[in-house]
């Protein structure tokens, strides 16, 4: 028994040393994200804010997104109750996902890369690596839980009790452990690391969707869903430690199961056999376009489905918009506009948020070409009749297609759900929503153009396009609440575009930004055609 884990402590210390930067970002980033919004929530809670928010969150769509609360009337809804209601599920999900990525990358991925083989040739037990990784995750999540609790307590808010704060932090830390347990089991079962990550995240996604259904129809049924144990602790209201205990036991069971599975399998192998591929390629694969569609299919479908879900989630809010806005000063300030209806105002604002998300996919697709180049996947293809222009324009075409489809799906489902939720009161038609969406097409093209420019001239900078997107997204998101100066807002490309249906369509701007974007794409092409291709450098 001891032999199997021999030397785990050496590995554990090695990992702490190797990962300390990643750990800092993980703990501080997620910790502050989970705990530091208390002052913002205090703003929201002013006046009738709490009971207004309470009403809003009774909307089934909102329950599907954030979960239920045990509080029964708006009057009893405290700041603490609202904070854990809105934040706990999402923060728990984040903690789970990061833990999954970390555990698989330290176990199965290293095994695939052959690193484990080297380590095992020293005096290190067969399962020491898994144990060291799990201990590292425990260590990280304990620190995370303590940081969250500490930060929350430090705000000194009445309704955020010390016990509640500890339960809140512990719930998020435990969510991380649940994710780690699931990931470690999948790492044993699946034949390769990508499958382990995918299946573990898939299980979490599935649990999330199942809990959305049971939360609305029957909360008791949700009690058998591991994901729920992370947020049904109801900190600051019921302070129920039972789900936490369940989650603890469940995580331990998963870890023990994973160790048993690992002990019985060969290194590099899984329990599920690799699915057989085709002996010959389908016709549809046999072109650059076919190949690029094939290798991007997974990411494209996942994002497009996400756009539909986000559109539907926001769309379902339209039914309760009136109550929501009247109850809340800060939100009123965000959406106030005397000339337009609240729905129109909301559409104009929410569209910016959705366009920010839609813009991610084209950047991913353009950057993919460099990723493929860098992994030397294309080396042998460079020597065929395929030209660089073909690689380039196929990527740009795919990205543009994804941008247009993304807008269509996001704006379309937003409109469809909104019109259904509003019923007869709806003053807006589906075309209004689509117009509001496609009004931002130049912004999406602009990000595509930036990514293309980077691809052609400075591929090492291609990740920086995400940074600019995140920056402009945040400017737009908070631009309404914080009083930011005009010039600062204008550094975000979306700020130049009027918000339909709130403001009038501006053809000049539409055309100008589109032309600039196309110019960037063409200039990027010139660079791509003449630069040295990088191969794993």
């Amino acid at each position: 028994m001891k032999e199997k884990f021999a030397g785990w402590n050496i590995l554990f210390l090695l990992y702490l040393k190797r990962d300390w930067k990643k750990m800092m970002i993980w703990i501080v980033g997620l910790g502050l994200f989970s705990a530091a919004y208390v002052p913002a929530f205090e703003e929201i809670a002013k006046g009738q804010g709490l009971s207004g928010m309470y009403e809003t969150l009774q909307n089934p769509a909102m329950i599907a997104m954030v979960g239920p609360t045990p509080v029964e009337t708006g009057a009893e809804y405290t700041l603490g109750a609202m904070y854990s209601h809105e934040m706990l599920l999402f923060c728990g999900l984040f903690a789970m996902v990061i833990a999954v990525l970390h555990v698989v990358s330290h176990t199965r991925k290293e095994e695939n890369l052959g690193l484990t083989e080297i380590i095992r040739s020293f005096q290190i037990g067969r399962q020491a690596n898994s144990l060291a990784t799990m201990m590292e995750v425990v260590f990280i999540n304990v620190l995370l839980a303590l940081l969250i609790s500490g930060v929350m307590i430090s705000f000194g808010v009445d309704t955020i009790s010390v016990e509640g704060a500890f339960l809140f932090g512990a719930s998020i830390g435990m969510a991380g452990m649940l994710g780690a347990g699931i990931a470690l089991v999948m790492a044993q079962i699946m034949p390769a690391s990508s499958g382990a990550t995918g299946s573990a995240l898939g299980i979490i996604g599935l649990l999330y969707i199942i809990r959305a259904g049971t939360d609305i129809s029957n909360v008791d049924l949700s009690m058998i869903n591991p994901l729920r144990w992370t947020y049904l602790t109801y900190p600051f209201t019921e302070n129920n430690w039972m789900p936490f205990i369940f989650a603890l036991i469940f995580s331990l069971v998963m870890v023990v199961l994973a160790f048993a599975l690992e002990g019985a399998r060969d290194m590099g192998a899984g329990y599920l056999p690799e699915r057989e591929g085709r002996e010959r390629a389908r016709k549809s694969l046999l072109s650059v376009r076919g190949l690029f569609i094939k290798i991007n299919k997974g990411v494209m479908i996942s994002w497009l489905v996400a756009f539909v879900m986000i559109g539907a989630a926001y769309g379902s809010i339209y039914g309760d918009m009136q109550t929501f806005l009247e109850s809340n000063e800060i939100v009123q300030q965000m959406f106030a506009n005397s000339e337009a209806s609240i729905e129109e105002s909301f559409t104009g604002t929410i569209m910016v948020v959705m366009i920010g998300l839609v813009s991610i996919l084209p950047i991913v697709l353009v950057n993919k070409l460099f990723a493929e180049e860098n992994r030397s996947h294309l080396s042998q293809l460079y020597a065929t009749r395929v030209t660089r222009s073909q690689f380039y324009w196929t990527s740009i075409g795919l990205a543009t297609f994804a941008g247009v489809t993304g807008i269509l799906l996001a704006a379309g489902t937003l409109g469809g759900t909104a019109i259904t939720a509003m019923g007869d009161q709806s003053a807006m038609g589906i075309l209004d929503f689509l117009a509001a969406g496609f009004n931002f097409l130049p912004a999406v093209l602009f990000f595509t153009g930036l990514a293309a420019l980077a691809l052609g001239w400075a591929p090492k900078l291609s990740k920086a396009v995400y940074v600019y997107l995140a920056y402009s997204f945040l400017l737009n998101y908070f631009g309404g609440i914080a009083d930011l100066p005009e010039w600062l807002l204008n550094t975000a490309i979306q700020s130049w575009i009027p918000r339909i249906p709130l403001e009038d369509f501006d053809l000049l701007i539409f055309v100008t930004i589109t032309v600039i974007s196309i110019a960037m794409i063409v200039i990027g092409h010139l660079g791509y055609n003449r630069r040295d291709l990088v191969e794993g450098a």
Partner: protein
Amino acid sequence: MPEIVNIQGLQKTFGKFQALRDVTFTVNAGEVVGFIGPNGAGKSTAIRILLGIIKRDAGMAEIFGKDVWKDSLEIHKRISYVPGDVTLWGNLSGGEIIDLFLKLHGRGDQQKRDYLIKRFELDPKKKAKGYSKGNRQKVGLIAALAADSDLYIFDEPTSGLDPLMEAIFQEEVEKIKEAGKSILLSSHILSEVERLADRVVIIRQGEIVETGSLDELRHLTRSTVTLATEGDVAEMAAVNGVFDFEQKDHQATFSADHKHLDDILREASKLGVKKFESVPPTLEDLFMRHYEG
């Protein structure tokens, strides 16, 4: 004889590092040229320039009489290439990837594809992420060998292959050679080069240090001679063209420079030869001299 590949004074610099200083060599029609040199000498860099993957800084590089950068598309219709480290898309099967390569090459031979898959014992249904290093390499080789080209460029094509598969690769290359195709073969496996190449080009630190047929190159170097004489064999140590002299009783072993072979034999016969053995240099010896020198 028409030149298929013609490189003159090729130079390439990465940042401050000059990877190619002066590379000049040719591959003639129907010829197999072995391209050898130590790690980091610039073999792959030169090949990437030939393929239009990177751009040269100076010099001339032509294939089929066309510029490798400007007319790459025309050239690519008639060449095949296998890199030393074939990387593949994990979720495609080997069979799918071979089909894709052949289709994009344009002159793939289905029958030869199936024949080579059998010959190399590749399981074409397996997803590429499940392939070992050697099996990935086979996918690249099959895709290149099953395409009908006029020039085949191999950059360490057999890295990771077991000796049996290596032998099969050599047989297949010989078939291509018999069909009159040209081949540029970079390899660290000298027996492979010795068996296949008509001519060898040796590169060191971005410069071509030697080129010629194996026979020609052998003349440039020394054979290992074992000599026993009636007189004092030690006198041989002073003869012109004798190197690395070692003596054991009446028998000596030394390297004999081919240029001075005549002197050496004359001196030896003065001492009364009892035993004379000469072993020609292997490519390995040639190599060591150039790599170290």
